[in-house]
């Protein structure tokens, strides 16, 4: 295999450049604005969860990162170079959600084929061992379970020994133990100093495996920080009470209370999110006909719901 690297080509990576740099990136498909302006930097070694509901623009952003599509506006750089150049140098690889495998090849053949496409790779056997599929090297891909296929995709992604690994909803369709094994392999791998960005809509995955959570909604970043920081956004509590026939006036009064982040009515139930739950509880029990009051601490789930809820009140 020959080495062809032109010194004048824009294909050179920049020392000290972030693993990922998205600046003012937007992406529209006709009238649909899938990504509406994302700025994101990921440093080498970071494990980042890209968390958001379906349709938030996660997969579109990942396609942009991998050079599978080009942004409508803004700039995408990996290690200071273009995504395509990073792919060609084996600096970035990805585990996609579904597909991307030939059913008639065996696991081992798939890895040998993929390895042959790069100028320098780790041994297929080594990649299989790290992905935990060495024992099924001779199995036809079409005969593998969903979890085994996903670990095969992971092994394929490991072949070029990338500095950045991108995973798009990697555990979709896996059972609990498959998911745990998969993450154990990823987590162990991350210790080697690789940057990892994974898209997920499983909150517990983001919480358990990421150093940093980037919450996206409607093509924008709505929160970015450590799991603890993101959880702290939900420093308040949730209150739920039965209040038959709650009027718009009742709601307006509740919303006007100190510390209330939001309130809504579902049938006979009112739901209030507040940083001062005592004030809301006192109001509900003394000024309204509310009964069956429940107060709960908010978890990351509630932050997720609050920040990604499909109402304009949550827009930032």
């Amino acid at each position, binding site marked *: 295999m020959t080495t062809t690297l032109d010194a004048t080509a824009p294909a*050179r990576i920049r020392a000290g450049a972030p693993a990922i740099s998205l600046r003012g990136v937007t992406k529209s498909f006709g009238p649909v604005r899938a990504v509406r302006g994302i700025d994101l930097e990921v440093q080498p070694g970071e494990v980042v969860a890209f968390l958001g509901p379906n349709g938030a623009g996660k997969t579109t952003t990942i396609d942009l990162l991998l050079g599978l599509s080009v942004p409508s506006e803004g700039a995408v750089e990996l290690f200071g170079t273009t995504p395509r150049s990073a792919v060609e140098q084996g600096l970035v690889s990805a585990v996609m959600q579904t597909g991307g495998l030939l059913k008639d090849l065996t696991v081992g053949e798939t890895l*040998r084929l993929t390895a042959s496409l790069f100028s320098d790779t780790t041994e297929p056997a080594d990649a299989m061992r790290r992905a935990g599929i060495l024992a099924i090297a001779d199995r036809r891909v079409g005969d593998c379970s969903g979890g085994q296929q996903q670990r095969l995709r992971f092994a394929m992604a490991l072949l070029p020994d990338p500095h950045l690994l991108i995973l798009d909803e990697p555990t979709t369709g896996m059972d609990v133990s498959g998911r745990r094994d998969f993450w154990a392999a990823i987590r162990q791998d991350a210790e080697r100093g*690789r940057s990892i960005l994974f898209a997920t809509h499983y909150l517990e995955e983001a919480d358990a495996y990421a150093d940093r959570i980037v919450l996206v909604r409607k093509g924008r970043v709505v929160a970015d920080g450590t799991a603890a920081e993101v959880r702290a956004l939900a420093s308040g509590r949730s209150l739920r009470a039965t209040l038959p026939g709650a009027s718009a006036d009742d709601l307006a009064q509740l919303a006007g209370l100190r510390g209330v982040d939001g309130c809504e009515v579902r049938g006979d139930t009112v739901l209030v999110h507040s940083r001062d739950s005592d004030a809301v509880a006192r109001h509900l029990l003394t000024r309204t006909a509310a009964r069956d009051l429940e107060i709960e601490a908010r978890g990351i789930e509630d932050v997720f719901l609050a920040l990604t809820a499909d109402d304009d009140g949550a827009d930032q």
Partner: protein
Amino acid sequence: MTSSTTTTTTSTTTTASTAATTMTDGARANRPTPGLGGFNPTLLALELRRVLRNRRTLVFTLAMPAVFFLLFGVGADYAGRDAGRGNVSAFIMVSMAAYGAMIATTSSGAAVATERALGWSRQLRLTPLRPVAYVAVKIATAMVLGAVAVLVVYVLGALTSADMDAVGLWVATSVLAWAGAVVFAAFGLFMGYLLPSENVMQVLGPVLAVLAFGGGLFMPLEEGSTLATIAEFTPMYGIANIAHAPLTGDSLELAWVVNVVAWATVFTAGAAWRMRRDTARV
């Protein structure tokens, strides 16, 4: 989550430290990219193995033309009759070789439809492999399978009743029948990029049979008939005539060459157009 991070870190400190060093060094250096756009012998060998493992492909490309030859080219009373510089059996052998090569190259080209449907082409875009190199591998695979298809029929012909005046005629007719099939590799690629199907050959099989009729591979078309006139414009017509010419002794006609060049241009342009659409970054 912080606690889980710390525990795993301590357990793998030793391996992590060495790996981290290489990783940091690597991050500063540019890495080489493969030559030839990723085209390589391993890829070609695995592609061939896939084709040869596919029982369906083997039946249609190797077994069927061979059986047709044995049914129609051997034993019948016309088989021994004169066909110019050889016998009719040899004429039918060339026809069936061209037919086999046509199916072989079309199906190999059309395999991109399956690979697109499976998301494999998208997966390949996450590797250094260039689309042109991918197509080159497909064409190379198609031509190897085409060569096997020709060889099978020719071996059967040699073992049975096919007869030509000189060894050179065997070589000339087989090489022409084989080389002409590259037009159908382009046809297969065009269809493979055009049709979003996992079973594209189910559509193309009957089409190929009709085109083979047009080329007079199954039976000679009555000269001067409307059918024969239409057939002159179908893509197998030129190839079939050129491949048979050394045997029949016919001199090369311009119309045959024009036919081959025209269809080769149409299919290549079509394949290139669809491929560009498919691999375009949108």
